[in-house]
């Protein structure tokens, strides 16, 4: 009889049953991966996913069936796998991997971590945790017919964040609010509107005309005219859109008139905007039903209103492209706005694609990628890193991690004891939130600056032309009297940061730009703390690097204007021995 794992070395085959692995994500790749893992002989598997099962998953996520819709992906995946491999020992977590409970210690429980994620925030996070824990990570992703798998091992390969990823295209607020020129602008507006009316309000998602549009040079005389125009809706601009909508009982006529008539008339008063553009045409409630199905916005508003009421006081709806009323509302509102701005209307299918940032997903690509992940996993466990398909670059400065308690670690301790003594940063000054604060004796805790588990801190030392990126991992399990622990070695010289290239990033699943589904929204952006120096090296710790810093300084003098002006700014600062804190958001 054929050897079951014929092509595997015996020791490797045997080690599989004792090896513990973590699978992050139980979606398209995750389902296939779990199956491949147990069929290859892995026994101890933990799987985490915060998502629940949706109908649109069923064309590829074969561990789920119609009857499972709405249930936890991780849980159902576990149950389905156990049914055909009862001897497997699977633990399922219906949770976000970004939850601080899953700390470095948690990651150290595994011999290997495999990502099967669909958003960049969670990928970044797992990447950093694995680097801090020094556990190999296999990163993967699919988009339509394309897919990728790569192995990340601290100190040996490039990490997920070594190459900057193209950022999601965003639109300026005034384009969305005042001067949409493409359907996507109207669709983004309609999604904002959904949140303003039914969801979580966000000051960055205003839908009313933007009076601060830089294109509209302010003229006091015009202001009066505008005030008259806005009188019709009285004070509504001062209360929140949701409050106002609620006070009208979500009256579709009032809503409609404000959004598609009054607001548009107000926009028309900003006549500078329309000198080079075609002016919008306000819609009238009486014409709305001539606009085909998109005119039935009142029905969708009503459905959503009753959903909101059902959820109880203070509840919020979360926009989901696969939720029909939410999708219908956005389709209708976007199309009405497209009509106002003389654009060709878009079908629901197309609006869904754009509003949901839908990336096609099929069973075949996921199957291929999940097969490849297991092959890479076997090689990784065998420590055949040179056999792995990966990028072997030693540029990774993210290999430096600091573990500490953000509520206890003060800025002063961090800046002096950690940065200056451990890393070759000379005289740190710190920027936090654009405000300048003194570093020495600054006993504010890192948590006061919004720094938390997984935050990445950037230290720039202009003097040395040195950039250090530090991942901060929050941990409550440090030894007594230890304030922080440094993991990994600081690179001698950090890489020159490169500029993200334009282009398709195939690797990032279908939700990179949309709401991350495996992470909380608040954790999406990193806090960046910049530490720079304007001092000559003075402390004894710096002696060794003095020579190199002089050489680098020369190099620096020849550097760009930008860096030079920064330098100048720093030079003009009072020359106390105290460092300043300037903060970035």
């Amino acid at each position, binding site marked *: *009889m*054929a*050897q*079951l*794992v*014929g*092509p*595997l070395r015996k020791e490797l085959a045997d080690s599989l049953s004792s090896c513990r692995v973590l699978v992050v994500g139980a979606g398209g790749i995750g389902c*296939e991966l779990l*199956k*491949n893992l147990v*069929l*290859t*002989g892995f026994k101890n598997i933990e799987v985490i996913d915060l998502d629940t099962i949706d*109908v*649109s998953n*069923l*064309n*590829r996520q*074969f*561990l789920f*069936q*119609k009857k499972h819709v709405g249930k936890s992906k991780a849980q159902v995946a576990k149950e*389905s*796998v156990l*049914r*055909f*491999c*009862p001897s497997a020992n699977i633990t399922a977590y219906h949770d976000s991997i970004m939850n601080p409970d899953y700390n470095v210690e948690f990651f150290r429980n595994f011999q290997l971590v495999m990502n099967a994620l669909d958003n960049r925030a969670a990928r970044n996070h797992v990447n950093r945790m694995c680097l801090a824990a020094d556990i190999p990570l296999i990163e993967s992703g699919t988009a*339509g*017919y394309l897919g990728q798998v790569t192995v990340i091992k601290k100190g040996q390969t490039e990490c997920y964040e070594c190459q900057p990823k193209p950022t999601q295209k965003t639109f300026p607020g005034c384009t969305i609010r005042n001067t949409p020129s*493409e359907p996507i602008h109207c669709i983004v507006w309609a999604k904002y509107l959904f949140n303003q009316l039914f969801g979580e309000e966000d000051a960055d998602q205003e839908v009313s005309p933007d009076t601060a549009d830089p294109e509209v040079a302010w003229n006091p005389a015009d202001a009066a005219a505008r005030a008259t125009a806005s009188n019709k809706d009285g004070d509504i601009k001062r209360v929140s859109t949701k409050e106002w909508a609620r006070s009208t009982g979500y009256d579709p006529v009032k809503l409609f008139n404000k959004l598609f008539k009054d607001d548009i008339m107000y926009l028309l008063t900003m006549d500078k905007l329309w*000198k*080079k*553009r*075609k002016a919008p045409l306000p819609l009238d409630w009486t014409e709305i039903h001539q606009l085909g199905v998109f005119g039935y916005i009142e029905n969708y508003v009503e459905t959503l209103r009753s959903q909101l009421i059902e959820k109880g006081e203070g509840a919020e709806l979360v926009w989901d492209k*696969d939720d029909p009323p939410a999708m219908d509302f956005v389709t209708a509102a976007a199309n009405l706005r497209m009509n106002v*701005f*003389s*654009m*060709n209307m878009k079908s629901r299918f197309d609006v*869904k694609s754009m509003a949901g940032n*839908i990336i*096609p*997903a*099929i*069973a*075949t*690509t996921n*199957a*291929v*990628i*999940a*097969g*490849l992940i*297991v*092959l890479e996993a*076997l090689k990784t466990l065998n420590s055949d890193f040179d*056999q792995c*398909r990966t990028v072997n670059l030693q540029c990774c400065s993210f290999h430096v991690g600091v573990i500490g308690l953000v509520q206890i670690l003060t800025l002063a301790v961090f800046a002096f004891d950690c940065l200056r003594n451990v890393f070759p940063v000379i005289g740190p000054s710190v920027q936090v939130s654009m405000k300048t604060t003194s570093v020495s004796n600054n006993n504010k805790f890192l948590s006061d600056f919004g720094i938390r588990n997984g935050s990445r801190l950037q230290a720039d030392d202009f003097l040395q032309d040195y950039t250090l990126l530090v991942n901060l991992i929050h941990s409550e399990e440090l030894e007594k009297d230890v304030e922080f622990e440094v993991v990994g070695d600081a690179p001698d010289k950090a890489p020159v940061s490169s500029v993200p290239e334009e282009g398709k990033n195939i690797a990032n699943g279908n939700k990179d730009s949309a709401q991350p589904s495996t992470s909380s929204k608040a954790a999406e952006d990193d806090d960046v703390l910049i530490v720079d120096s304007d001092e000559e090296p003075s402390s004894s710790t710096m002696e060794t690097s003095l020579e190199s810093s002089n050489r680098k300084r020369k190099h620096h003098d020849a550097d760009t204007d930008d860096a030079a002006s920064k330098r100048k700014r720093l030079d003009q600062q009072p020359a106390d021995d105290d460092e300043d804190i300037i903060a970035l958001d």
Partner: protein
Amino acid sequence: MTDNKTSKEQKYDRQLRLWGDHGQEALENAHVCLINATATGTEILKNLVLPGIGVFTLVDGHKVSGEDVGNNCVSITIFSKPKVTYMLNDVVLILQNRAQAATELLQELNSDVSGNFVEESPDKLLDNSPEFFHRFSLVIGVQLPESTYLRLGSVLWEAGVPFLICRTYGLIGYMRLIVKEHTVVESHPDNALEDLRLDQPFTELKHHVESHDLDNMEKKDHSHTPWIIVVAKYLEKWYSEHNSQLPKNYKEKEAFRQLIREGNVIHHIQRILTNENGTPEDEENFEEAIKNVNTALNPTKVPSATEDIFNAEQCENITSQSPSFWLIAHGVRDFVRNEGNGKLPVRGTIPDMIADSDKFIKLQNVYRDKAMKDAAVVSKHVEALLQSVGKPPESTSEQEIKLFCKNAAFLRVVRCRSLAEEYSVDTFNKDEITSCMYSTDSEMVLYLMLRSVDRFYQQHSRYPGVYNYQVEEDINKLKLCVNSLLQEYSLNVNVKDDYIHEFCRYGAAEPHMVAAFLGGSAAQEAIKIITHQFVPFNNTFLYNAMSQTSATFQL
């Protein structure tokens, strides 16, 4: 009914965006036969059942064996069904037919799919009723012995049924596609050039361009004129200075760009003279025009692949049996040779560009209307053709013709060589094999090794290395097989001993991760064949899981 439609739309949403409603329809009308529900076989079928193939028939004469439900390669048990758990502990149930067991499990994955099973070995079916295989849209043969796939291959070749052979052999994956002729209208090319006809504008486009007067436009209009118009306008200027010749090389194109740049400035200067505060500024549409000069001025011509199709015998000799692809191809050819003056029907789409909606839509309509007109002329030709072969005019739909015209520049015909040609010492592709084997680690060596293990099987009725205690002696036996293969085909190539050892070590095992990879790839090729979208590989695919490399060969 409509409920069913919406629920399908929801379920299949993420794939409809790749192959569209008509691709999905083709999938739902397909009947696929899969032989052998091994790990690779069930992976392939799973990947076809999930996206909603219409019907599948599983042919498998094997009983579920210990190997299937053993520790790791429990291929058929990947599908969640309580019965399977039971099977693991119940010897009696293990003797259940593999075809039936797998069919039941596969059907659970998608209630829209219907599945049949035949508890019969393919060899028996070939003995008794080879026409059994004629009914399928595609036959996929998995882990078949050489003698079986050669027999089946010749039956299917005669019947014109596409045949896909798939094989997982240790860390090697192999696929071979055998299809006499596979036509693709929607090949979805990656970097298609637009069909703008700026070098040879049609009358309506000419008139439309003439209706714009860039020199006497308001600034607002000037900066919102689509770049296509801008290029067309400056092309007129260029022609007057260059003997009506298109800018051809880099130098000329650069000069043409300069012409547009200067023109833009001149326009602004003129406006400054008349307008009090018009400061020259970059106009985005002019920037776009300059950026697009390179591709927009490509001469319009019939691509060679399409030309080959026009000259093919199937296009020449239309009969009442001709598939609609060739009928329409003939119609388009007639158009090109007559009304089209050597050009294909206008595609009718233009890219997104900076313009106000009104101007954009007007321009779009110029192209769209012309495309409709051209398609209507093609329709007339097709109608006449149908009449001449005695077929009713409604045998091809208007929609089909429009789709064909729109894709006329991207048509593809894939013709694979038959297995008989590949195996005959007179017709095998010696050049390809020899030239690839200059590098001893080319994936071609895997092909030679697979042929050698088949030879081994023929002689010993088992694959090398399947029994641990025989691995050593099998190495020598396999070496003999390799040598006799090379000798028979007079191949003067070197097969490294490493590969012989490695293939013995594999013991014909079917490790799941390789099966998963091949299952995904094979299902995707099957979907291409069924939907007639995207271009399938031609004709041999090899995957090396050890080095993570793959290659395709024409054998």
